[in-house]
């Protein structure tokens, strides 16, 4: 196998295509993620970073281009099929878990992510005991609440369990969609630490969309800055080169400056020709 886990070739997608409101969410994006690397994606609102994640997960069917995972073309795979290889943690902690099902049932479903489900009992004694151990490793005392509906837990606890669910069966690719943005600072810190531990332990290929420059430089080996549906900046080996939040802020300023330039240039052309 090559060292490339995920590869995007000229992936484009437009919302409201062919109308005046057309928005180019993804504009011929080219991207390669090396196996076992952690890539953080930054960008302004509407820059296409969420679309990028959705396109890879399959909740957005892209209009053009190819998406390859481990060398296999998955462009036309439905979301559920991709989920056997790609796991995902959502921004909203309630999205990643089924509230009415118990903690153990949620975890057991995650454990069955890459296989066939059949008429075996979901939770026999053996499996329940194994799950109890897995949850105990979180160190949050949740092993005592295995049979509670997961909906009675706090957002932070649910998000921690979602991270566990996304990583307990090793995915080919882990997608994190601003997964700490909806949490209080304390829970966010806990989830970040948990994420870091799981990613390191499994040597996972990870793509994380975030608004937090701190998280981006702290976790990412590589930082992408998206703008107008394109990868505007691609900073590699950010940790070794000690890239700081401050450097990223400067990049954002540059983007903003370039935007203004665009607009004034367009205005000049309009004046000259209309």
């Amino acid at each position, binding site marked *: 196998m090559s060292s490339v886990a995920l590869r995007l070739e000229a992936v484009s997608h437009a919302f409201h295509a062919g109308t005046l409101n057309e928005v180019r969410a993804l504009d011929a994006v080219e991207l390669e993620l090396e196996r076992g690397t952690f890539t953080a994606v930054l960008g302004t609102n509407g820059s296409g970073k969420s679309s990028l994640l959705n396109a890879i997960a399959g909740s957005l069917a892209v209009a053009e281009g190819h998406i390859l995972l481990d060398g296999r073309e998955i462009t036309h795979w439905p979301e559920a099929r991709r989920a056997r290889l790609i796991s995902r943690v959502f921004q909203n902690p309630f999205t990643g878990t089924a509230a009415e099902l118990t903690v153990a049932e949620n975890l057991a479903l995650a454990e069955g992510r*890459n296989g066939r489900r059949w008429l075996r009992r979901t939770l026999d004694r053996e499996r329940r005991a194994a799950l109890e151990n897995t949850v105990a490793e979180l160190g949050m005392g949740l092993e005592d609440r295995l049979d509670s509906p997961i909906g009675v837990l706090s957002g932070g606890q649910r998000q921690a369990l979602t991270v566990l669910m996304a990583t307990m069966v090793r995915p080919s690719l882990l997608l994190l969609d601003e997964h700490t943005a909806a949490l209080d600072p304390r829970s966010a810190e806990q989830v970040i630490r948990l994420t870091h531990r799981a990613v390191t332990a499994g040597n996972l290929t990870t793509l994380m969309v975030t608004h937090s420059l701190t998280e981006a430089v702290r976790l990412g080996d590589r930082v992408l800055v998206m703008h107008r549906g394109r990868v505007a900046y691609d900073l590699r080996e950010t940790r070794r080169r000690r890239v700081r939040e401050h450097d990223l802020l400067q990049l954002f300023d540059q983007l903003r400056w370039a935007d203004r330039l665009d607009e004034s240039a367009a205005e000049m052309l309009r004046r000259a020709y209309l």
Partner: protein
Amino acid sequence: MNLLVGALTIGLILALLGLGVFVTYRIYRTLDLTADGAFGLGAAVAAALLVRGFPALLATGLAIVAGMLAGALTGVLTTRLRVSPLLAGVLTSTSLYSVSLFVMGSGNVSLVSADGFVSVAERLAHRWFGLPESVTLFGAIVGGGSIASLGLMLLLAVATALLLALFLNTEIGTAMRAAGNNPQMARALAIDVNGMVVLGLCLANGLVALSGALMAQYEGFANIQMGIGALVTGLANLLLGEALLGRRTLGRLIAGAVVGAVAFRLVVGAAIRAGLDPNALKLVTAALVLGVLVLPRLLRRSGLPTEAGERV
């Protein structure tokens, strides 16, 4: 006494309807109007086959298959053609009205001379347990057929409820509950949500059709009007059961569907005996469902404490 045995038997037959509605209403949170059509279809298919001399078991089995197909149709309409669940159910149910008419050949089929489950149960009970032709229960004479039917229905309803509970705790069953509870999460865990919706509708309407098929055999006729209001009746069973047993666990919900159906028939039987016009039955059923759904909200508004997190 005969009335009581009859009410219990019908209650247990309708418990299967309640279990079907439980699958769509509690697991998928949709009101699946296919139930009305599937109940009538089950009755129609069983009746049409019985008058042609098919054995009761086969006729009932094929009625279940017909109901499952009806559920699959609604499922395909919602998942592949993106029709809203409510409209899909109405469309299927409406078209099933014609299908049932075709199957029966007329609006009413008598099963008086057919060999339905009642006579089968009577024969088996006679052969295995030596059940006499009539029994004296608490001073009243009850036909052996009635007792045998009640026993068979009790067995069937309890076994079905148990099987459903076991199924919902298998990997597929758990995936199904997740698909109903949080489709986005289910997809992210590689669960084919559309497939699960179709499967759930098949299961639900198979149960509903079974209930219809048994009802036709018990009543001794199939009528094209039989299915009307089946969904609301099933809901009434379910909600009454939840009021009696609570809804804290899956087991309670499932047991509630059975207990609620029986309790509901007992109340109905008592009311009719006390002088309620049987024609008012559907009106009363609908009013009961509305009452159970709305009452908690009204109570909350008036400041009285209600169960937390209750939602209609």
